């Protein structure tokens, strides 16, 4: 398309937006609302993902070895663990290290309680194991338990399960909500454009008599949808950005350090792109749909 033609289409589209101003504002507002809800779920999903990652890192498995196992056997067990499927990282904690940790950290100030334990260490050697995929924790724990001389394998399966099921549910729910919102927004914008098209039926009719191609007729309407969608995206972005900023500030004041939320500058570009893409897509698809049947004059 030639530039002059595009400029013409664009100025026609702008005229359309202002001509039925109230409808344009109404649909801009609705699209912004849809995008805001979409944004809330997107932010929620991103944060749930990030929290899941954080929890995953905290979720190591602890494997305890029978107290009277020889040092060679302990090393050997370490190698066997490394060969087990789904194991990412293995760290040995000797009973001496564990005792030291107990004395220095756990019983600080009450060291006397542990007197005499240096000679007769009650702890056992253990391995800290980090997994590749925590969703396969159960299977991995079962394999690890089969290794000889292993006393027990302890994992925080409950925490993991809760986090995983929450994050799974949030993701599924978000996808459903996004699809519903997308459809709603497309229907809304297609109705606005349909109204414009209806108002300008006479004009379209004249265009057809003069010999305008379908594309020439369609472009201003599609651009109209695009403009509304784009402006809706900008409005929604401002609201979501400001809202998330306020939330982060509020949470920072709470001194809460179990996990961290994703920073605003890490999420802003993602939200901006998401909104512009969705907003424009909604606008373009919506108007294309409403144009289809009107073009046959």
């Amino acid at each position, binding site marked *: 398309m*030639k530039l*002059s*033609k595009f400029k*013409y289409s664009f100025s026609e589209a702008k005229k359309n937006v202002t001509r039925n101003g109230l409808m344009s504002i109404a649909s801009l507002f609705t699209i912004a609302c849809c995008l805001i809800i979409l944004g809330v779920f997107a932010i929620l999903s991103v944060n749930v993902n990030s929290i899941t990652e954080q929890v995953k890192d905290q979720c190591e498995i602890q494997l305890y070895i029978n107290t009277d196992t020889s040092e060679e056997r302990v090393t050997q067990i370490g190698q066997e663990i490394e060969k087990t499927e789904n194991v990412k990282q293995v760290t040995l904690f000797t009973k001496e290290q564990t005792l030291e940790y107990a004395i220095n950290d756990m019983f600080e100030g009450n060291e006397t309680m542990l007197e005499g334990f240096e000679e007769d260490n009650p702890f056992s050697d253990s391995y800290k194991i980090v997994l590749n995929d925590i969703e396969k924790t159960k299977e991995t724990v079962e394999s690890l338990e089969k290794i000889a001389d292993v006393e027990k394998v302890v994992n925080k399966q409950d925490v993991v399960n809760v986090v995983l099921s929450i994050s799974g549910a949030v993701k599924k729910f978000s996808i459903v909500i996004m699809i519903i919102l997308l459809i709603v927004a497309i229907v809304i914008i297609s109705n606005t454009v349909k109204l414009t098209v209806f108002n300008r039926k*006479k*004009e379209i*009719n*004249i*265009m*057809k*008599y*003069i*010999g*305008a*191609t*379908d594309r*020439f007729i369609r472009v201003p309407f599609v651009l109209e949808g695009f403009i509304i969608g784009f402006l809706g995206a900008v409005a929604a972005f401002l609201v979501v950005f400001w809202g998330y900023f306020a939330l982060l500030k509020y949470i920072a004041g709470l001194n809460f350090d179990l996990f961290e939320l994703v920073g605003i500058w890490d999420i802003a570009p993602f939200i901006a792109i998401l909104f512009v893409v969705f907003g424009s897509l909604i606008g373009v698809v919506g108007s294309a749909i409403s144009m289809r049947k009107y073009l046959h*004059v």
Partner: protein
Amino acid sequence: MIEFVNVTKQFEDAGNIALENASFKIENGEFVFLVGSSGAGKTTITKLIMRETNVSEGQVFLDGIDVTALPDKEIPFLRRKMGVVFQDFRLLEDRTVYENVEFAMRVVGASRREIRKRVPEVLSEVGLNYKAKMYPRQLSGGEQQRVALARALANHPLILIADEPTGNLNPKTAMEIMDIFEEINRMGTTIIMATHAKDIVDVMKKRVIEIQDGHLVRDEVGGEYLEAVQV
């Protein structure tokens, strides 16, 4: 050249046949009146030429091209060869006289320079240059029809199709419009005009094609209106 070859048209939701087995030829540069009582099939003929509707049977040729077989995407280009005016003018109310004509040129992708040159030119052809900045509602019926005519002529059509162009005008204004038609025709544009205006047809002495109930009943050069009863 326009040629109808055994054209029959029956609208899907209509009982009667709008046009039945009609054949005629119109050479380039001719001036033809289509006459006949209401519902005879005059508008149907103009619609078939523009491919606003398609035949049920037969063929319509325009400069040797079978219009009835044209794919949909070619229709706009077919229509660029012709200008159309209607009884009800069909101007864009929210645009000035100048913009209404300009619009027709925009649609076919004319450059800004061509537009600046052609719009005043065609407006003076219809004698409306001095009202270029006015809106349709500020104009008389005759003046509005002149704007419509200017718009139809803006892209130098080979054929001008007019469907009762004087239907909403008083006799004096109607004759003034016809003078412009005559002039356009003299410059080489083929004119096909469906009309009920007996006085105009009788005075102008052009070729007359008369249709009754979808049948071509008379085709006479220099003919008169002679409604209905055949002698």
